[in-house]
């Protein structure tokens, strides 16, 4: 396991998503240093890989490959976003007329179909979207995480036009749904990894706010690009 190799590969992979204006944080990747005595602000362990976040340092240990690192970064992000009114969602996000259309659903629901039916360059992500409330406006961002296209998303964001729950059908139909139904649809698609009650309360607050403020719809669609015709502008 060569960590400088993994570090270089990761740096390249996430370079489009780095921000040189952000406060610098040390990232340690499999460096073997012992920080056991210091309690992290957040910790997570999965299949031997360990993530620990401290005030000025993020440590990844026992991470064997890029896929594992990708997973750990997603976990870290779900925690970090709690203090930024945001969350990660299994959803494809497509930009159209300057707005973000967020299509959510589990594997097989049609996220990659929607992405493949959208113009090249308009897909912010076909797998994992980041939604965040900024200055009272919900915006959707692309993420670098791999989807079925095996391509990273785009480091772009746009105000959210709507969140659409994908349902496959023989005709295209869009139906507005109530906030509680949006929340019900969001929950199984949200990425979250903490069983801590306080973190879950914070997440539920953020999701409820999103459900109340973002227009939500059920979208029954045929597997062709004609579904765009029924979407709200």
């Amino acid at each position, binding site marked *: 396991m060569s960590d400088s190799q993994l570090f270089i590969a990761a740096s390249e992979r996430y370079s489009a998503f780095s921000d040189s204006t952000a406060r610098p944080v040390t990232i340690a990747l499999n460096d073997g240093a012992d920080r056991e005595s210091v309690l992290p602000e957040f910790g997570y362990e999965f299949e031997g890989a360990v993530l620990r976040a401290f005030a000025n340092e993020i440590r990844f240990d026992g991470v064997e490959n890029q896929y594992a690192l990708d997973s750990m970064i997603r976990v870290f992000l779900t925690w970090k976003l709690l203090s930024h009114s945001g969350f990660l969602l299994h959803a494809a996000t497509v930009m159209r007329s300057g707005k973000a259309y967020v299509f959510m659903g589990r594997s097989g629901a049609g996220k990659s179909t929607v992405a493949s039916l959208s113009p090249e360059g308009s897909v912010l992500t076909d797998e994992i979207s980041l939604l965040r409330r900024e200055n009272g406006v919900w915006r959707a961002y692309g993420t670098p995480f791999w989807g079925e296209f095996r391509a990273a998303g785009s480091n772009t964001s746009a105000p959210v036009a709507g969140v659409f729950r994908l349902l496959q059908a023989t005709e295209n139909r869009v139906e507005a749904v*109530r*906030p*509680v139904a949006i*929340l*019900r649809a969001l*929950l*199984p698609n949200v990425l*979250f990894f*903490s*069983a*801590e*009650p306080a*973190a*879950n*309360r914070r*997440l*539920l*607050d953020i999701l*409820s706010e999103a*459900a*109340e403020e973002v227009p939500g719809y059920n979208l029954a669609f045929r597997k062709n690009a004609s579904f765009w015709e029924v979407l709200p502008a």
Partner: protein
Amino acid sequence: MTTMPSVSWQKNPALAWREIDDETVIISPNDSVMHELNEAGSFLWKNIDGKKSAAELAELLAENYEVSPDIALSDTEALLEEMSSRKLVMTIPAAGGARS
């Protein structure tokens, strides 16, 4: 399960909940299961405070929803039992550790 009238009820402290659309949505973080309570259920949920008994909760329900005390009590007990089976609420053992 039988509950004694004097036993008081509390919310499971491990839960996260939020009111939305006049309903209450409750998440249990350990299994990520979502529970929904209707308006009357939400009313009871708000009043479950670790002090009130089923009878006291039923009394509040009867006052606020114009139902007879008998119906309020049976509805309250049924709802508490349902919520208890889903581990949303629990009883506080009476002093001396006696449990129903």
